[in-house]
C-alpha cells in the first residue's frame, strides 16, 4: 500500500471538507473493497477519510419505508428485527453478502457508493425504489446508478443513509460466482401495489439494471409462468471466464422464477 494520511471525520460535513482539502482523498467506510484495492496498489489516494465516527449507523422504520444509515454494517442489517419485520428480503440479502467477516465490516453506504457490478445492495436499492440521502440531496435509485462503478455522487458528496420502500412482497435470489462469491446473477423482485420492480445485479455490462420485460410480465401476472413467458435477452450482459452472457440470461430467468415462487 502506498503511504497515505488518515483523517477521522466527526460528521459528514467534516468528511466533505477533508475531501475538499485533499488532492485525491477517498472516503473510507467499511473498507472491504477499498483496502484490498490499496493493498494491490491499484489506487494511490493522498488521504483516507474515515467516516466511522460520523453517527451514520442505524435502522429507522419510517412507516412506508425503512431508512438505514450509510455506515450500518451488513451484519447489523441482517440481524435487525425492524428490517426483518419490514422487508425480510433486505435482511436476507444483507445476510448473504460476502462472508461473515465481510458482513461484520462492510457497510451499506460503501457498497452503494462503490456500485460494483456484482454487488448485492444496488439491486435492493433499485427494486425497492430506494432513495440515496447524501449530505446535499436525495437521489432516487433510478438516477443514482450510472453504470459500472459509476454513480451520481459528486466529489463533495457523502452518502448519509438509504431509504427502501416497503413492498407487499419481495425476494432476492443470488447465484454466487463460485470463486469470489459476489453475485454472478442476483435478482431482486419487489411487488408493490402499483406494480413489480425487478432489479438485476452481477450480469449487466453497465452494472445493476431494472428488467422492464420481467417487470411488466410480473406486474400483470405475478407468477412463475409469467416469467417463463419472457425471453430474457443476453444483449448487454457480461461474458467472462465464469459465465457467458447466454448463461447469465438463463440465470436471470431462473433466479426471477425462484424469487417469485419463494
Amino acid at each position: 500500500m502506498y503511504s497515505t494520511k488518515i483523517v477521522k471525520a466527526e460528521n459528514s460535513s467534516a468528511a466533505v471538507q477533508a475531501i475538499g482539502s485533499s488532492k485525491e482523498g477517498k472516503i473510507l467506510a467499511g473498507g472491504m473493497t477499498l483496502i484490498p484495492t490499496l493493498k494491490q496498489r491499484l489506487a494511490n489516494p493522498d488521504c483516507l477519510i474515515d467516516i466511522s465516527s460520523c453517527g451514520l449507523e442505524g435502522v429507522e422504520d419510517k412507516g412506508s419505508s425503512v431508512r438505514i444509515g450509510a455506515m450500518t454494517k451488513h451484519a447489523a442489517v441482517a440481524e435487525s428485527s425492524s428490517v426483518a419485520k419490514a422487508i425480510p428480503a433486505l435482511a436476507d440479502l444483507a445476510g448473504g453478502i460476502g462472508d461473515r467477516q465481510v458482513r461484520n465490516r462492510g457497510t451499506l453506504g460503501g457498497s452503494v457508493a462503490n456500485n460494483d457490478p456484482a454487488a448485492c445492495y444496488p439491486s435492493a436499492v433499485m427494486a425497492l425504489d430506494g432513495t440515496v440521502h447524501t449530505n446535499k440531496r436525495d437521489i432516487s435509485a433510478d438516477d443514482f446508478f450510472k453504470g459500472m462503478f459509476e454513480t451520481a455522487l459528486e466529489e463533495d458528496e457523502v452518502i448519509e443513509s438509504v431509504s427502501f420502500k416497503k413492498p407487499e412482497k419481495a425476494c432476492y435470489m443470488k447465484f454466487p460466482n463460485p470463486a469470489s462469491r459476489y453475485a454472478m446473477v442476483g435478482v431482486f423482485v419487489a411487488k408493490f401495489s402499483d406494480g413489480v420492480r425487478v432489479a438485476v445485479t452481477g450480469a449487466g455490462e453497465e452494472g445493476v439494471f431494472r428488467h422492464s420485460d420481467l417487470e411488466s410480465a410480473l406486474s400483470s401476472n405475478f407468477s412463475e409462468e409469467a416469467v417463463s413467458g419472457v425471453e430474457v435477452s443476453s444483449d448487454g450482459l457480461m461474458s467472462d471466464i465464469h459465465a457467458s452472457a447466454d448463461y447469465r440470461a438463463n440465470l436471470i430467468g431462473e433466479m426471477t422464477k425462484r424469487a417469485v415462487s419463494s
Partner: protein
Amino acid sequence: MAEVSLKVNGKVENHEVGENTLLVDFIRETVGLTGTHVGCDTSQCGACVVHVDGVSVKACTMLAMQAEGSEVTTIEGIGSSEKLHPMQEAFHENHGLQCGFCTPGMVMSAIELVSKNKSPSEAEIRDGLEGNICRCTGYHNIVKSVQAGAEKMGG
C-alpha cells in the same frame, strides 16, 4: 506516522506506526504475535481472522488505525497450551487441522459462529466458514470440530 493505541489480548499496545499499517501487520510485526497469518491479498482466505471488540474480522482488510481504542483478540489470546479454549480442544480431538496455517483464523471464525448460534447444523457450519479456506482437511474434520466445540462451549 501515527500513534495507535489498542488492546491486544488484554494488553495495551501503544505504538507509532505508518498510517497505512494494516491491523495484521501491526499484530505480526509490531506486537510480534505471529499466530495470525496472511494467506491472500483479496480478503478471502481468512487465515488472518481475529476478533475486534468481539466480532470476527479479517485483519488484512482493516487498518490498525481503524482499530484504535478497540479490544483485539488473536489466537494467542483465547487459551494456553496448558488450558486450551474448548474450540481449540475440539480441533485437537477431531483432527481438525493438518498443516496448521489456516487453523488460527478457522478457530477464531468458529468461536464467533458458535457465539451467535449455540448449536449449529452441519450446513450452518459450512455456510458460516465461507470466509476461511483450508487446503488440507477437505473441511470434513473441521465441521466435526466445530460441532464438538459448540457442545463444549455449552451449546
